[in-house]
C-alpha cells in the first residue's frame, strides 16, 4: 500500500487532468439529481423572501420532488389577498402554480381589480410582467377579463428596439436580450389571458421576436456551448449573470410557443448549444445559480418549440477488468428517454487516424432509450477512444439533436510486466558485465556493484490486457542514497521496450560524487492502468571518484532543503542599547553641577553685590523687567526646543521674542549708559 503512494498520487493527478480535458456535457443522471436535491435541502434554512421560496420550489419541481414544507397554499392565499406589492403577488402566484393550489374567486376579487387598475397606471416592463403573470395564474382558477389587452400589448411593444432587444422602462438608456425574454414571457401571459383579442399579424410579430432572440447567443468556448450574456442594463434590474439571462430568454420563447399554435423557427443547433451551456454549468454554486440552471433545463426538457436530445455514453471510463459495457442513451436534458436509431459511424483510438470499427447500427431497447454497444467490447484495449455516433430521432419535428456526436471514452484495465532486465555494462566496450532478469512475481531483490567507468541498464516490457505492447504515460527509475538523496530518471520507449541506460561517468556530478549504496525503485503508471506499480528492485553500490579540489561534497542535509525545503529564517536584531550609568551616580553628578552655582551665589554674597543699579521707578523699571523677562523667555524657548519643538518652530518664535527683547533691552541699557556716563568719564 505504502509503496504505491507516490505512483498512485501521480496517476490520480493525471487521471483528473485527462478526464477534465475530455469532459463533455452529459445529461443529468440520477446521481446528479440526488446531489442537487441535497444541496437544495441544505439551502432551505437560508431562504426568507417569497422569490427565494419560489426558486427553491421550482428547482425541486424540476428535479421531480414535491416539497410543501416551504410554503403552504393557505399562506400563498394570504399573501395574494393582503399584499400590495406586485412582485410579491407574482411570486406568491408562482408558488401557488408550482404547488397546484386552487382559490375561490370571491376571496381574490379585490386583488384582481387592484392588479387590473395597476396595469393601466404603469409603463414599466417588470410591473406589467408581475401583474400579468399573477393574473394569468388566477385565470386558470376563475375568469379574469382585461380592460384593454391591445393597449397593454402596445405598451410592451413600445419598449422594444430595432434589433429585437428590449428596455425595462421607457427612460432606460440601453436595451437587453434578457429584457426581451421577460417581454416575451409577459406577452405570452397576455395571450393566455386574452388570446381572442390578437390577430394573426400580432402573433406573427411575437413569433418573429422569439426566433430572432436566439441570434443574441454568444460562443462561450470551442466546446459548442452558447449563451446570452448579461448587459449593463440587466444589472439594474436584478442581474443574475449569463445563467439568468439565458434562462429568461428560453423561458420567454417557451411561454410564447405554449400559448400560440403553429411553429416557431428556432435553429436546432442553437437550442442544443444552450442546453449544453446549462449542462456544463451543472448543479452547484448558489441557490440562485442552481435555480437558473434547473429552470432553464426544465423549460428545455418540456416545451413546445424544440426539445434538445443529448446522447450520453455511460460509463465514460470503462473498466475492462470489471467487465463493464457501454450504455448509450438518447434522452432529454433531464433524462427522459427519446426513441432514436444510433449508428456508430466510427471508433478511433485517440492519436490514431485509422478507425477500427465502422458503421455499426446499435441494438436498442426502445422503452428505455438505451442502446448497447456490444460489438466494440472485444476490440477494445486500454487507452482513450473517440466514438463518433450518428443519431436519427424517430419522432421528427419536436426534437433537436446533433446529427453527429463525438464522445471520448477512456478504457482502463490491468497491464502486466513480465520481467525487468537489470544489468551493469562496460562503458567503453558495451559488453555486459552483469545481467539479471528481475521477476515481479518473486520480487527477489538484486545487489549490484558499479564504478563510474560502467553503465547501469534497465529494460522492461509492458503488456496490455490484450497482450499488446503498452507504453505508459509515466515510467521512472528512482535511485535513493542512504542519506535520503533521491534522483529520478525517466525510462524512455525504445522500439517496443522501455529502456534506461545510465552512464555513470556523466552522472558523477549529478550524484554529487556521493558513493555508497543506492536503492533502486521502479515506478510505472498510466491513466488507463488500473495497477500502477512501485517496485523495489534491489540496491546498487556505486563507487564514484572523489570530488576535484574546491568542490564541496553536498550531503543530504545540504542539498534537499536547498531544493524544495524552506529557506533559512532571517532574523533581524536591534543594536543592543548602550550601557548607561546607574541612576544614582547620574543624579549625584546632577546635584554636583549645582554646587558651583551655589558657590557662585555665595561668592556674590561675599563680594557684597547689590541691586542698587536696578532702576527704581517709572518706565525704566518696566523696561528692565521686560528685558529680563525676555531673556528668561528665550531660555525657556530653548528648553522647549530641546524637549519638543523643531528648529523651524523655534526660529519663528525666536524672531518674535528677539524683537520683543531688543526694544526694552536697548531702552534700559541706554538709560543705564546715560546714568553711568559721568562715572565712566571720572574713571
Amino acid at each position, binding site marked *: 500500500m505504502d509503496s504505491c503512494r507516490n505512483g498512485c498520487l501521480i496517476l490520480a493527478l493525471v487521471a483528473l487532468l485527462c478526464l477534465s480535458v475530455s469532459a463533455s456535457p452529459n445529461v443529468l443522471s440520477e446521481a446528479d439529481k440526488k446531489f442537487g436535491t441535497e444541496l437544495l435541502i441544505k439551502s432551505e434554512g437560508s431562504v426568507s423572501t417569497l422569490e427565494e421560496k419560489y426558486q427553491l420550489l421550482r428547482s425541486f419541481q424540476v428535479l421531480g420532488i414535491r416539497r410543501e414544507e416551504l410554503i403552504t397554499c393557505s399562506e400563498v392565499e394570504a399573501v395574494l389577498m393582503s399584499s400590495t406589492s406586485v412582485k410579491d403577488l407574482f411570486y406568491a402566484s408562482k408558488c401557488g402554480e408550482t404547488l397546484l393550489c386552487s382559490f375561490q374567486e370571491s376571496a381574490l376579487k379585490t386583488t384582481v381589480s387592484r392588479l387590473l387598475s395597476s396595469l393601466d397606471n404603469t409603463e414599466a416592463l417588470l410591473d406589467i410582467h408581475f401583474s400579468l403573470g399573477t393574473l394569468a395564474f388566477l385565470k386558470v382558477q376563475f375568469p379574469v377579463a382585461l380592460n384593454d389587452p391591445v393597449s397593454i400589448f402596445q405598451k410592451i411593444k413600445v419598449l422594444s428596439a430595432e434589433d429585437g432587444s428590449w428596455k425595462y422602462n421607457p427612460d432606460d438608456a440601453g436595451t437587453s436580450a434578457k429584457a426581451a425574454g421577460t417581454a416575451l414571457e409577459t406577452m405570452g401571459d397576455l395571450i393566455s389571458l386574452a388570446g381572442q383579442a390578437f390577430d394573426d399579424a400580432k402573433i406573427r410579430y411575437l413569433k418573429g421576436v422569439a426566433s430572432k432572440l436566439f441570434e443574441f447567443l454568444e460562443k462561450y468556448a470551442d466546446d459548442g456551448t452558447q449563451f446570452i450574456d448579461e448587459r449593463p442594463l440587466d444589472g439594474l434590474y436584478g442581474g443574475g449573470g449569463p445563467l439568468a439571462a439565458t434562462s429568461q430568454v428560453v423561458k420567454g420563447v417557451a411561454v410564447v410557443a405554449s400559448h400560440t399554435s403553429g411553429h416557431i423557427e428556432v435553429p436546432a443547433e442553437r437550442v442544443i448549444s444552450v442546453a449544453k451551456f446549462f449542462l456544463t454549468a451543472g448543479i452547484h454554486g448558489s441557490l440562485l445559480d442552481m435555480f437558473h440552471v434547473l429552470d432553464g433545463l426544465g423549460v428545455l426538457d418540456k416545451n413546445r418549440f424544440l426539445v434538445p436530445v443529448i446522447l450520453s455514453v455511460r460509463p465514460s471510463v470503462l473498466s475492462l477488468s470489471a467487465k463493464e459495457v457501454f450504455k448509450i442513451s438518447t434522452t432529454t436534458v433531464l433524462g427522459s428517454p427519446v426513441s432514436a436509431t444510433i449508428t456508430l459511424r466510427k471508433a478511433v483510438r485517440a492519436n490514431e487516424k485509422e478507425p477500427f470499427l465502422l458503421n455499426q447500427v446499435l441494438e436498442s431497447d426502445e422503452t428505455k432509450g438505451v442502446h448497447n454497444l456490444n460489438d466494440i467490447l472485444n476490440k477494445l484495449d486500454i487507452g482513450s477512444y473517440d466514438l463518433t455516433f450518428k443519431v436519427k430521432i424517430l419522432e421528427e419535428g419536436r426534437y433537436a439533436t446533433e446529427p453527429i456526436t463525438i464522445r471520448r471514452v477512456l478504457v482502463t484495465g490491468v497491464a502486466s510486466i513480465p520481467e525487468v532486465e537489470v544489468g551493469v555494462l562496460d562503458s567503453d566496450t558495451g559488453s555486459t558485465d552483469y545481467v539479471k532478469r528481475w521477476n515481479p512475481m518473486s520480487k527477489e531483490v538484486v545487489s549490484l556493484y558499479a564504478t563510474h567507468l560502467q553503465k547501469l541498464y534497465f529494460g522492461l516490457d509492458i503488456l496490455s490486457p490484450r497482450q499488446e505492447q503498452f507504453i505508459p504515460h509515466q515510467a521512472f527509475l528512482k535511485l535513493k542514497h542512504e542519506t535520503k538523496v533521491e534522483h529520478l530518471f525517466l525510462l524512455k520507449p525504445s522500439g517496443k521496450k522501455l529502456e534506461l541506460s545510465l552512464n555513470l561517468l556523466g552522472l558523477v556530478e549529478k550524484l554529487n560524487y556521493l558513493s555508497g549504496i543506492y536503492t533502486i525503485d521502479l515506478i510505472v503508471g498510466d491513466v488507463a492502468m488500473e495497477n500502477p506499480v512501485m517496485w523495489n528492485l534491489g540496491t546498487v553500490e556505486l563507487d564514484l571518484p572523489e570530488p576535484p579540489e574546491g568542490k564541496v561534497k553536498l550531503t543530504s542535509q545540504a542539498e534537499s532543503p536547498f531544493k524544495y525545503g524552506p529557506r533559512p529564517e532571517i532574523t533581524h536584531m536591534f543594536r543592543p542599547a548602550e550601557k548607561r550609568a546607574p541612576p544614582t551616580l547620574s543624579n549625584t553628578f546632577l546635584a554636583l553641577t549645582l554646587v558651583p552655582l551655589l558657590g557662585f551665589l555665595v561668592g556674590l554674597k561675599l563680594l557684597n553685590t547689590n541691586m542698587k543699579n536696578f532702576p527704581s521707578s517709572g518706565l525704566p523699571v518696566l523696561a528692565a523687567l521686560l528685558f529680563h523677562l525676555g531673556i528668561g523667555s*528665550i531660555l525657556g524657548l*530653548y528648553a522647549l526646543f530641546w524637549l519638543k519643538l523643531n528648529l523651524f518652530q523655534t526660529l519663528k518664535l525666536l524672531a518674535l521674542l528677539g524683537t520683543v527683547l531688543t526694544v526694552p533691552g536697548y531702552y534700559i541699557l541706554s538709560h543705564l*549708559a546715560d546714568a553711568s556716563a559721568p562715572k565712566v568719564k571720572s574713571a
Partner: protein
Amino acid sequence: MAGAAGDVKALFSSLKSAYVATPTKLKIIDLYVFYALCTAVIQVVYMALVGSFPFNAFLSGFLSCVGTAVLAVCLRMQVNPKNKEFKELSLERAFADFVLANLVLHLVIMNFLG
C-alpha cells in the same frame, strides 16, 4: 627651600593685595568664569567615570560651559577700565554683546544637544 617657599608666599600675598583692588564688577565676572569652568570640570569627571555616551550631550554641556566662560572673559576684557583698547565702548554695549553672543551660543548648543 625656605626662601623659595617665602617667595611663593610673598607672590601670593602680593597677588591677593593687588586683586583686592580689582573693581567688584570684574570680580563678579571672574566668579562667573570660575563657576562655569567648575561645572565643565564636573562634566569631564563624570564622562571619565561613566563613558562618553551620549557624546553629543556631553559635548553640548561642556562647550556650553567653556563657551560662556570664554564670552565672559571677553566681556571682562571690554569692561576692564585699565584696558585702554576698549575705552570708547560703554559697559552696557559690552553687556548687550555678551547677552546676544550667549543666546546664539545656546541656540546652537540646544540644537546639538539632541
